[in-house]
């Protein structure tokens, strides 16, 4: 079976507006993500990045087009069939609290996506997942507010990994984090995607993190694809105005590695 991991063609999300033209939040977007491949989705606020991710995750209905995941067309599916087809893709949000219930322990939240596994096996699995994301298993007994922001994001990643997905949809997973915690989470994602043969679709405005994690970049502007290129090629020679603007806004280089560096 050689179907790509995710193949999107002509995806449109059109929203009616009370006055004037309907809004084309996504306009004929296409992409083809092979197995174990990682793509960054870049663009300015309001360009449709998050809409794209949420449409793939089924949180926003598509107006037209096709979304094939591991060879299965998702758009006509409903209910159980859709949930089943989607187990292989999991989403991680900017705010970890979006996937952790404040009234549940971390262990309960991590185990929720795998209801078919019970008893001791379940506890084992949760423990292993917590270790995999660099959390001490004893933290499973805590509630979200008893963890730091970085620890909560790790827990949210553990939960996303529970059903053993093949694709992670990441929506600004590090933007709310401090620089050093951010680096730890990016490195964790790099290790996990290696170890578990994960594909990644990463929406972010954090270019250095995207560069570590992603081979290719898709640049959106006004719901349309402005550019698609290997990440390094985009950095070296951006073709579109949009990509050039994004790169120009990156704080330019007064921060270079110090000559007497210790790391």
């Amino acid at each position, binding site marked *: 079976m050689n179907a790509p991991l995710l193949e999107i063609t002509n995806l449109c999300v059109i929203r009616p507006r009370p006055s004037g033209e309907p809004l084309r939040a996504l306009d004929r977007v296409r992409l083809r993500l092979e197995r174990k491949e990682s793509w960054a989705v870049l663009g300015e606020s309001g360009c449709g990045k998050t809409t794209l991710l949420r449409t793939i995750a089924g949180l926003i209905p598509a107006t037209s087009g096709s979304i094939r995941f591991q060879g299965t067309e998702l758009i006509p599916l409903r209910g159980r069939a859709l949930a089943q087809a989607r187990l292989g893709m999991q989403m991680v949000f900017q705010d970890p609290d979006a996937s952790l219930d404040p009234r549940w322990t971390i262990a309960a939240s991590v185990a929720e996506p795998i209801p078919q596994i019970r008893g001791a096996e379940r506890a084992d699995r949760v423990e292993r997942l917590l270790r995999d994301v660099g959390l001490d298993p004893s933290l499973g007994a805590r509630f979200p507010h008893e963890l730091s922001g970085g620890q909560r994001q790790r827990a949210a990643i553990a939960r996303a990994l529970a059903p053993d997905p093949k694709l992670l949809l990441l929506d600004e997973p590090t933007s709310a984090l401090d620089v050093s915690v951010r680096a730890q989470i990016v490195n964790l994602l790099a290790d996990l995607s290696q170890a578990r043969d994960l594909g990644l679709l990463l929406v972010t405005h954090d270019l250095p*993190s995207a560069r*570590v994690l992603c081979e290719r970049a898709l640049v959106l502007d006004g719901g349309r694809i402005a550019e698609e290129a290997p990440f390094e090629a985009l950095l070296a020679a951006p073709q579109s105005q949009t990509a050039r603007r994004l790169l120009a806004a990156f704080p330019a280089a007064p921060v270079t590695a110090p000559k007497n560096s*210790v790391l």
Partner: protein
Amino acid sequence: MTKPIVEIENLCVSFERDGARTEVLRSVDLQVRRGEALGVVGESGSGKSTLFLAAARLLPPSASVSARKLQISGHDVSRLSRSKLTAIRGATIGFVFQDASASLNPYLTIGRQLCEMVEQHRHAEAPRAMELAEQELAAVAIPDPASTLHKYPHQLSGGQRQRAALAMALLAKPAVLVADEPTTALDPTVQAQVLELLGRLRRERGLALAMVSHDLGVVAGICDRVAVLYAGRVVEEAAASSLFSRPRHPYTAALLASAPRLTGLRPSRLAAIPGTPPRPGELPTGCAFAPRCPRAVSRCRSEVPPQITQNESRFSCFEPLGEPA
């Protein structure tokens, strides 16, 4: 030498939590001079925000604050009564925060809020107040200032809200503006515009600026001098150019080495400082950075390193990195 606008000496702050006191700032000395931009950097929880909130006496009653000196434009802030303090606050020290909604009232139009600020600090009445408000919105480059006056905060984009909050702080004509992570929540294009604006206002108005951020890139572009905070202490302070090219404190060097960049070969990982900062109240004895420090020697774990002052810079470390050439 002109007198500094902000003078902080031996500032200590602790918070009461569950019956216990935890110290979050420990004998901090800091100055902001006229017309200068000072950057304050450090990881989350290092005390960056607490520092200036303490200087403006804006901390909640659960905080206890002590200092040898706490002066803003000549006023002894620690001795002023609450009412006097409120009266002079906006005109001495102004704030913009990461979340602009913290300074804007969601139920009042922008115009109404700006006018209140003008009436309070500049004693101008409508319609003159409205005129000044509109001018200030134009100065912070809000498109169509006249119609923005009639809008509510939620009707503005994130970048425009941040500009409106800035206009509000500026209307009081503060001697020093504290910008606390002003661009962290904004997307990079808007972030660059807001930073450009802050730099311009500073040059044009001779405004003193204190820029609080965990992002070295943000600070590097705009600040003349930088103070590095670790676990509630200033561990190094120097002119921005020398701090970035020749840091003396290992923590500063580690922060710089881990600053994300886009040049060079594609890295397979982001550089990260190993470990995590100590939690307040659980500080190790000796140097607080010792558990994460690649240069630590046994002495670092038993004694607190004293502060060493050289020319215009200072640092606290037993094993500093090489001297500037």
